[in-house]
């Protein structure tokens, strides 16, 4: 198991945005979290990645080869260093930095050089900088963005920006990739490419993938297990075909028939 969440609860004042949610992800799985708008999916993500401090419950995560340990309430950058990397629902790139530099920031938590090294540029620092450029470029090449390496991130086409977010997350060497609506705003062609990319990453990079998505065809096509949330509670979970037929899920999405 790479992620084990137990009874996770998040309150904002009197509002319970996430209510005792249990969820787990096995190594190499692609798992989706779905639900109507405002169901608490992104809040759940933010709790797992340390953006919010959960009110209650437990979150444990760890590399497949190591023991899983509690990451609840840790700072976001420590969780990232632990091996959970995320993307954002509304793209959050560093717009004026180049594509390459965006990925280099992702590498940052694996670097060691400090202020003294920066001022004196000793051989170790220089070697590290050269290595970062090389590593970042290889990641860009893998995601198919190498041709834009020198371009400012804000000048990329929309789909490429989404992929750059994934590349940047990949640069942190995660074991679990958390994608918050990766296909939002993409056209069908870009979405197909994205599905391919996610599958390829899972297979080649030894990753597990956890995604929030509204595009149902993508979710049904890509994920191996699905969790459904509504009003902060987990209302269903299971294989795509089971979830699709679950009356509770259909009710949550379409509303209750008045005459029934």
């Amino acid at each position, binding site marked *: 198991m790479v992620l084990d969440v137990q009874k996770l609860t998040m309150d904002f004042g009197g509002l319970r945005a996430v209510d005792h949610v249990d969820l787990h992800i096995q190594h190499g799985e692609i798992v989706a979290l779905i639900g109507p708008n405002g169901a608490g999916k992104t809040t759940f993500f933010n709790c797992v990645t340390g953006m919010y401090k959960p009110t209650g419950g437990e979150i444990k995560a760890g590399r497949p080869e190591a023991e899983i340990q509690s990451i609840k309430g840790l700072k976001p950058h420590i969780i990232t260093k632990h091996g959970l990397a995320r993307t954002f629902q509304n793209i*959050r790139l560093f717009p004026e930095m180049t594509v390459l530099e965006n990925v280099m920031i992702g590498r940052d938590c694996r670097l060691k050089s400090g*202020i003294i090294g920066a001022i004196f540029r000793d051989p170790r620092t220089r070697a590290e900088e050269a290595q970062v450029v090389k590593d970042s470029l290889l990641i860009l090449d893998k995601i198919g963005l190498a041709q834009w390496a020198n371009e400012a991130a804000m000048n990329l086409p929309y789909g490429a920006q989404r992929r750059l977010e994934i590349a940047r997350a990949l640069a*942190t060497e995660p074991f679990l990739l958390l994608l918050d609506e990766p296909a939002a705003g993409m056209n069908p062609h870009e979405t197909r490419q994205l599905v391919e990319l996610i599958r390829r990453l899972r297979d080649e990079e030894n990753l597990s993938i956890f995604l929030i998505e509204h595009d149902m065809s993508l979710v049904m096509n890509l994920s191996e297990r699905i969790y459904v949330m509504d009003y902060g509670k987990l209302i269903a979970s299971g294989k795509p075909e089971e979830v699709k037929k679950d009356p509770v899920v259909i009710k949550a999405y379409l509303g209750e028939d008045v005459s029934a």
Partner: protein
Amino acid sequence: MTQRLHELRRSLLVSLWFMLLTFPIMVIRVNTITGTIRWRWSNLALIGIGSFVISVVWRYAMQRKTGEVRATGVFAQVGARVGAGAEKVRTVLDSPKVRVRLVSGLLAAAVAYPFLTSMYHTNIMITALTYVVLGLGLNIIIGLGGMLHIGYAAFYAIGAYSYALLNMYFGINFWLALPIGAALAGLFSLLIGLPTLRLRGDYLAIVTLAFAEITRLVLQNWQQVTGGAAGIPNIPRPQLFGMTMRLHQTTTFVYFIMLAVVILTIFVVHRLENSRIGRQWVAMKEDYIACQAMGVSIAKAKLTALGIGAVWGGLVGVIFAARTTFINPASFTVWESVIILSTVVLGGMGSIPGVFVGALVLMLLPEYLRPFAQYRMLIFGALLVTMMVFRPGGFIKKRRKAYTITEAEKQSVIEAGAEADEDTEE
């Protein structure tokens, strides 16, 4: 044509409005002794014409800026020439050979400066260079780290007072005080940074402003230690191997110390800017949330920016105290912080040459505008407003030295990566 007429009508309205507004103060003059009123109609005419002309010029410039109107005739030719010239200058400046020549030329001029001019001009230049360093220091915090800090003069004060006090009580000399003053400024910056780590934008600005005022008030009211508002007199000038120097020699000496500090600052800031730390700072400025999600410790990045930024304030503070031989809290008011902030914003946030030029302009201009002393602040204000409207990026806009790689380098890395992959598969 109708549009032109429309514009002229607007300008006419503006001038009428101004005439009406200034009528009571500029036209009517009541002589209370004789009980008569003098109507100064000529003033009214001057205001009308003046505001009309300024309004027309301003409107035209604004339209040019938004691209609504294109220059025609002579103006177009001149504009094109200037544009092409600027482009040429830029490409010439980009070549390393020219840069080396330019920098060495500047350096030679800087070295020769005190010997070619009088002590008065050298002193002015020392002040200007002081503000270059202050601007570059604040630039680390604002331009790179993206934190709005409007209490930078506090670090300047801390540096100055640490030399003055350490010298008065412990007899510590200038050279020893230099690093101590810098370190103390950095330390105080960290102390104020720690509790404000969660603050951003305007909120941080308020705290830093308060910090600067508190520092000044402490210095002013702690009579027993700091001498209060009366300040500290008789601070020794910098020494060189115990040589006795006459005043103009000391001035030249301080000038060279200042020059060395400027060069050191530019070197260090340049190196930091293009390093892992600099990258963290820029990322933090561009997207705070994404930055921490990508594994960068915001707390660390913020504190390093605050600490390293403040060090320069402390350093030149020590030099300031040694140069003027007398300091008091009045030298470190909020106005001082505002001036330093203006050099950064006016020069170009985050740009080293920009801040350099900004500080020189802001310091030298008022000095040489002394003949127009009455209108100094007016010109200064007009310059600031015009700059912010027409060149919001500053005199010299920051051009990031982005990590760019050539196509050949890219290919070689990618191919090497592909080979490595095959090796592992076999």
